[in-house]
């Protein structure tokens, strides 16, 4: 849809876009309150209409219709909007932690650590990209591979401990439902491992008796009970998602967003 621009032209286009956007936003601020909601509803409807028509219009052998070529352009607009929003996030982060440091709130040292880490990673990333060298690469690797990745891995590993404590609570035999849950979970777990399979290894692999092998029972619970129940939940979710999407697209979701302000 758009030809990518580089160098000076790119800078000019960015500046022009910023100025035009600024003027547009300035003019919109003068829009009477009663017109704001219809304007938002109209923009929402038009933006959604493109995707609806692109999805519904018949396609040719190359799986494309008259609107398909513009899909990348629309996706890029979305990306630009999201990229602009990153600035909002950084502002929120600095504002919250800056206030904590200035007011010496409890735990303000953590805020200092966060801001120092923020600048360390940002500056090392810039140097790594624009002025590569052994020192810059070393700092970059230390920040990303040495610190960030390991910290994330550490957080992920905590999940395994939480699974144990959550499972303990869930499997405590307090009611009929909890007992059924415990029994099913026990069979499924033991049926998945070789030790469990060895318990009923003496049973034949064919015929009626094969149905009583632990791995068969575990598979039956997963595919005949668990999967249909999950599919039923997902069916309800799918219909709910569709209904909610229609409500949002047609701006019928009154009261949840901007009902009074705009």
């Amino acid at each position, binding site marked *: 849809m758009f030809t990518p621009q580089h160098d000076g032209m790119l800078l000019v286009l960015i500046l022009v876009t910023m100025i035009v956007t600024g003027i547009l936003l300035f003019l919109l601020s003068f829009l009477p309150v009663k017109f704001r909601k219809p304007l938002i509803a109209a923009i929402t409807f038009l933006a959604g209409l493109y995707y609806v028509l692109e999805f*519904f219009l018949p396609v040719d052998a190359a799986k494309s219709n008259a609107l398909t070529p513009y899909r990348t352009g629309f996706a890029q607009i*979305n990306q630009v909007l999201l990229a602009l929003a990153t600035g909002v996030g950084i502002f929120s982060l600095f504002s919250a932690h800056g206030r904590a440091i200035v007011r010496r709130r409890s735990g303000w040292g953590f805020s200092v650590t966060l801001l120092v880490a923020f600048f360390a990673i940002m500056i090392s990333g810039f140097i790594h990209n624009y002025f590569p060298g052994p020192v810059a690469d070393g700092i970059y690797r230390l920040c990303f591979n040495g610190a960030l990745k390991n910290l994330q891995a550490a957080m992920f590993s905590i999940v395994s401990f939480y699974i144990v404590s959550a499972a303990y609570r869930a499997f405590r035999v307090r009611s009929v439902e909890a007992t059924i849950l415990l029994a099913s979970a026990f069979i499924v777990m033991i049926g998945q491992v070789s030790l469990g399979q060895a318990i009923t290894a003496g049973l034949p692999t064919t015929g009626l008796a094969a149905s009583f092998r632990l791995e068969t029972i575990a598979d039956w619970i997963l595919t005949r009970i668990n999967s249909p129940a999950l599919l039923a939940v997902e069916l309800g979710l799918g219909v709910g998602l569709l209904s909610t999407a229609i409500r949002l697209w047609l701006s019928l*979701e009154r009261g949840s967003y901007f009902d009074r302000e705009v």
Partner: protein
Amino acid sequence: MDHATPAARIFLVLVAAIVIIFVLRAQNGKIFFIRRIPGLTAIDEAVGRAAEMGRPLLASIGLGGLNATTGVITLQALAIVSFIAETASKFGNRILLPMVDPSLIPIAEESLREAYAKGGRPEAFHDEDIIFLSDQQFAYAAGVAGMINREKVASVFLFGTFYAESLIIAENGNRIGAIQVAGTPSTTQIPFFIAACDYVIIGDEYYAATAYLTRQPTLVGAIVGQDIVKGLVLTLILLGAILSSAGVPMVHNFFADKAVPLADFLHSIPAAARKGG
């Protein structure tokens, strides 16, 4: 992205028509009934407890953003959190909202400001309670867990798209004894929430939440339309199973987009239109 098959065209238009018809009927004064959903009724209890204890509430709208995959889920989560904020504002409670997606911060601020105004306490709203933590999954989980423990929140509300971080957050809430209400369309995370939270909203109850909480005719009408569609889908599944078992797989083939007279006819329409064009 895929394009609509003939079956999808008919079915999606039918679904949209049913939902819109019921919305219009509700807007014209027809009263519809919604059954009690315990998880949503518990919101008042959780907010009231926080007021009694004089501690803040914490809400998370998960890892979803404003993209095609999770946008609707996230906006629904934000609508639920807005209602919670409105209830909380009546008691003068603070609600902490750690965020993953910075593009949602202005929307969240506006929604919560509006909610506090509706609750009659606009001055109780503080911008700094909506804080961007990180767009990295486990950095966000660590941040939320830290907030739960530092602030000793009385109640935790988890609505939206969650992945492996769900259990880290919910277990920390459980550890400090907070009342926890959760709801997510991420089916793989529902068991974790059931194990760690006090109330869990399952399946399409998630999308019924705003209608249930606000009782607005438009939303209630949409929920009724949604239930009619579910009934229609179940009828088609039953009919398809019976017909397929009888050796006439017409319903199955139609939705599987295989050659049957009706599908052939529908396929021929765009081809004829192209020739005509």
